[in-house]
């Protein structure tokens, strides 16, 4: 392979379909979750260590900054799970036979994520 052939992967100059955005966000949310897992485990630890730490965690969750961090982590989780379940459905041969089916399921993932994150916001507040 000629190593000097031109490569254009300047994303800014390429018009991407919705499937690309869904895919990139899936990666971004996955990387966020890798670090957010520390927050989830820290909360699990606080909720299980003792009744006192359980109550302290409950009090901490009333703090708006804590709420925002947890909201962001759970929003990443909701999106990543929904976009991931889309792939699991495709594994069964559903909706992976054409670009249009992929585009429609990508939009469905976006819409479902917006609904899930809205419900999440309502649950936290």
């Amino acid at each position: 392979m000629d190593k000097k052939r031109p490569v254009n992967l300047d994303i800014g100059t390429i018009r991407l379909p919705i499937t690309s955005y869904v895919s990139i966000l899936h990666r971004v949310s996955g990387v966020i979750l890798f670090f957010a897992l520390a927050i989830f485990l820290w909360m699990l630890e606080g909720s299980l260590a003792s009744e006192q730490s359980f109550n302290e965690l409950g009090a901490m969750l009333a703090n708006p900054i804590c709420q925002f961090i947890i909201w962001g982590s759970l929003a990443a989780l909701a999106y990543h799970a929904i976009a991931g379940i889309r792939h699991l459905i495709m594994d069964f041969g559903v909706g992976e036979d054409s670009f249009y089916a992929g585009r429609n399921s990508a939009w469905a993932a976006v819409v479902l994520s917006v609904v899930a994150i809205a419900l999440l916001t309502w649950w936290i507040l």
Partner: protein
Amino acid sequence: MVTTVTSLGRSGLFDWMIQRISAWVMTAYLVFIVGYFFSNPNLNYAQWAELNSSLPMRMFSLITILSIAAHAWIGMWCVLTDYITVRLIGPKATAIRIFFQLGMIAISLLYVIWAIDILWGI
């Protein structure tokens, strides 16, 4: 040429399968925990500790954290091998990528140990 020495399954096919199996486990855990919180809106400590100290729940949580670690390892490996490349960031890319890959693997293993410590310390 990217080698697969730091990948979990040592081949794309194995990585793909581990990624799917772990995804199903995590989906099951997520559905369960969301359902549990939804049906127990005024959860207290005793109830929560009782659930998490029961053997079936400990096993479910353990399988889930192992799935998370494997899934994160494979996912982070894909991201690191895609973006920390010689073409994108220059000749030191391989050394930098190995550093981040080993760091990512270490963090994944620490998460597993931490989770076991939490679950068996109730």
